[in-house]
């Protein structure tokens, strides 16, 4: 066992002890192993936030929003023990989610099977339809909707929503979203339609709480990334395709992947590379391509396309003749670079702390990257144990991006969605500005509030709130009666209290509360006309929609 692994085991034990003993309550699964030497971490988070606010805060950052009862559950387990468990998702039973995903067959298919089962329509058929030779019905019979390639991305979108709403492994889902966005691909680009679900499943998910360099390695050789950033076509100068349908075609160097690998995946744009480095990295990756993209879709290294010469990448020499190893060497050089540590640390801190993360925290996370070889849980622990994370000015400082808003609204209302409902909610996310798996540029979606707050998007959020609370999304159920159970419907104030407690954990500002209280006497809420004398029949759905559409609920 090396030093790093030993340190981790020791720490895991400490966390387990915290879960078992110090913070009392439910048991956390013990990690086992003996070790020691490390000081036990604090039993309570370093915070000045009062009462339940550290828990409310952590729930809002590590999950897609709190469900009814989550606060009480975390309080019982102990916050740090709960965080520890979220960092080790394999220890959390999530069979209900697996069951909910069972009907989505494409999620489990290898690329070759997807290519076979969801064939691209024969281009001649389109002509035949245009000329009237083939009827729409014949087309539909031959290529039924559920067997068209578009189904693959649709099932992936539905699954993403179902997981965000249902999964017990919330932090893992948050990290899958985070890393997919970091290593973004655009699901509608050509053959990517068949590759995108395998990309998330095989390249992103296994490493979402693993080691950062493994993410780079896995994405670099995945057909989705090879296709998205064109590396599969990149070849040494004057390469002529020797066989196959493109025989005789000339190909050459393509810089697209090389540049984004440094700018967006590792060093960051100011990480200290030059145009010359871009060209050198591109040369190193020549030959990393896709084996028969339209039938097999597997990584293959083709030595004939590879530029065998020497390369120099950010000052480091890669000797001539390395073949496929050249690319591996580049990844090693880049993932060990201090700029990568800083870049990754900054992005993590921005996701979990604030749009302008505190430099001291970023520095500590970066140094953890370096000392652990990019261990993601280790970096996250530094964040979740930091004073900066629990600081007053980080509390509710982040604006939810559209997908976070949609998922958190469903969760707040105790909602559930099946696959079809998931697709409806994915469309809602798109209307608010974040179509899932469809960020076209390699930068992915931005993680800054001002990008998501604008007039049109705000209206879309309100419209979604109204639709969701009144049950207008098919296959999405919300549990409003349970949420306000016990509150007298003739007392709008009592109903409002329940809703504020459930949806925003009683953290509504005094202005919002005052406005909502003022609304309570409006006929839209009481459902009484001015002449009615009977008791109010509170419109719970409308009141819940107002809370979900309120400024407070747009934040996490």
């Amino acid at each position: 066992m090396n030093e790093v692994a030993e340190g981790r085991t020791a720490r895991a034990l400490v966390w387990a002890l915290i879960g078992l003993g110090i913070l009392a309550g439910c048991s956390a699964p013990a990690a086992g192993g003996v070790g020691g030497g490390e000081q036990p971490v604090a039993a309570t988070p370093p915070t000045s936030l009062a009462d339940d606010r550290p828990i409310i805060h952590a729930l809002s950052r590590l999950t897609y929003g709190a469900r009814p009862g989550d606060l009480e559950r975390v309080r019982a387990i102990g916050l740090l023990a709960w965080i520890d468990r979220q960092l080790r998702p394999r220890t959390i039973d999530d069979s209900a989610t697996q069951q909910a995903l069972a009907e989505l067959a494409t999620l489990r298919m290898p690329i070759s099977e997807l290519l076979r089962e969801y064939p691209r329509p024969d281009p001649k058929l389109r002509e035949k339809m245009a000329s009237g030779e083939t009827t729409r019905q014949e087309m539909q019979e031959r290529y039924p909707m559920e067997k068209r390639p578009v189904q693959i991305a649709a099932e992936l979108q539905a699954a993403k929503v179902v997981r965000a709403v249902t999964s017990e492994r919330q932090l893992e889902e948050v990290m899958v979203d985070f890393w997919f966005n970091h290593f973004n691909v655009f699901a509608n680009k050509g053959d990517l339609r068949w590759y995108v679900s395998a990309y998330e499943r095989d390249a992103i998910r296994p490493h979402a709480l693993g080691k950062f360099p493994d993410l780079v390695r896995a994405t670099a050789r995945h057909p989705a990334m090879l296709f998205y950033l064109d590396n599969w076509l990149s070849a040494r100068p004057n390469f002529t395709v020797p066989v196959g349908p493109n025989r005789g075609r000339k190909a050459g160097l393509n810089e697209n992947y090389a540049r984004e690998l440094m700018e967006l995946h590792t060093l960051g744009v100011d990480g200290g590379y030059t145009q010359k480095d871009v060209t050198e990295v591109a040369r190193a990756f020549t030959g990393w391509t896709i084996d028969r993209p339209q039938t097999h879709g597997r990584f293959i290294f083709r030595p004939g396309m590879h530029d065998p010469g020497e390369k120099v990448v950010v000052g480091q020499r890669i000797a001539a003749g390395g073949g496929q190893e050249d690319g591996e060497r580049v990844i090693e050089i880049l993932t060990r670079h201090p700029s990568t540590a800083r870049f990754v640390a900054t992005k993590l801190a921005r996701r979990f702390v604030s749009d302008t993360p505190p430099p001291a925290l970023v520095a500590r996370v970066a140094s953890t990257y370096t000392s652990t070889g990019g261990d993601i849980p280790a970096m996250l622990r530094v964040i979740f144990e930091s004073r900066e994370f629990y600081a007053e000015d980080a509390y509710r400082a982040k604006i939810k991006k559209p997908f976070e808003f949609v998922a958190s609204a469903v969760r707040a209302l105790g909602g559930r969605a099946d696959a079809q409902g998931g697709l409806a909610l994915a469309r809602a996310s798109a209307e608010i500005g974040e179509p899932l798996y469809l960020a076209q540029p390699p930068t992915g979606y931005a993680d800054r509030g001002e990008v998501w707050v604008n007039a049109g998007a705000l209206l879309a959020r309100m419209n979604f709130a109204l639709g969701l609370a009144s049950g207008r999304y098919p296959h999405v159920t919300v549990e409003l009666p349970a949420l306000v159970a016990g509150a007298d419907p003739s007392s709008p104030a009592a109903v409002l209290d329940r809703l504020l407690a459930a949806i925003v954990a009683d953290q509504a500002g005094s202005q919002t509360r005052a406005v909502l209280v003022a609304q309570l006497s409006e006929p839209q809420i009481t459902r009484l006309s001015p002449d009615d004398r009977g008791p109010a029949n509170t419109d719970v759905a409308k009141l819940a929609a107002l809370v979900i559409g309120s400024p407070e609920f747009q934040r996490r």
Partner: protein
Amino acid sequence: MPTRRTFLKAGGCALVAYAAAPRFLLRAARAAETNGKVLVAVFQRGAVDGLSMVMPHGDAGYTGVRPSIGLQPPKRESERAIDLDGFFAFHPALAPLVPLWESQALAVVHACGSPDTTRSHFDAQDYMETGTPGIKSTPDGWLARAVGGRPASATPFRAVAIGSALPRTLQGDVGAISMQSIERFDVRAGSDGSARQGFEALYEQGVRDLLHGTGRETFEAVKMLRSANASRIAPANGADYPRGQLGGALRQIAQLIKANVGLEVAFADMQGWDTHVGQGAERGQLALRFREFGAALAAFAQDLGGKMADVVVLTMSEFGRTVAENGNRGTDHGHATAMLVLGGGVRGGRVYGRWPGLGRHQLFEGRDLAVTTDFRTLFAEVATRHLGAPAAPLFPGFRATQPSLGLFA
């Protein structure tokens, strides 16, 4: 146009709603001073190949470097590039723009771009939108500053972006609006409007932050748009907008202009210019983008008819593409590109800017078209001469090293 209530849009101190009333009167009084000019910015995201958009067929350096994606020199009555002045030619798919060129409503600025040498889409777009090449900390966009420097006006529609997000160039304290569609810009549930009132009240008061500020402007805009009935205004003069992102955006911008809601600047995006693979020549991937681009601009000009005297469309892209074709019949990230200026008092029918040449020794870093016109020279000229925006806050730190282009008489 007066609305029930207006609010301070500039950020800063905490402020409650009723304090805004005197400000509203002040603004309404000033509204009469606006000159009715509109600037529409169109961003070609992904770096358009300026050498295909406006081909330098007169430059010998063009020959041979693009064996499979190069355009054939212009030839009358054919599907080839369309000659403009004996040296430059439009891509054949830009044919809808030719009548505008011939009537001198349309000008080209070639070899235009940023003094910053980045080939990162993200950084270059950021620099072009903030108007501060090399500086990332600039909080607002140049288009927002162009509006902010003009006399105040009482409408929430001074600055509008069509799209799901507010672009960097309109971020700032002018309270720009973004919308995906005019038609759906409202709280949809409840025919009685009660839900709208509820939400409006939630954002009406309280802290002065991004969410509340945006919320207030949103509801002002919703009300104004409803009364102006903008979504019912049909394209005029037989204008036929192409399907797609840009056509849809320009059609709605035209509706806002015709609805007289006080629009001063508008912004529209068009994606799909990052042609690393299989770019095509007279036909193909890039040609299809040009077809939509040209048809959308032409439809917009036709739709607005005589109103185009008050409207200028300015197109831009973060950088150009390599002069030589790459290994995959495409082009990689380059430097200078071409930009178009259409409408208003533009002296069109000519190509502006010094041509740096395509000879190997003339290229930037030995591979890309050099920049001879700083994009800020062009943008500043359009903003000051057309909109009448004061030059001072537009491009902080910019000292023009070249005379103005003389785009306007």
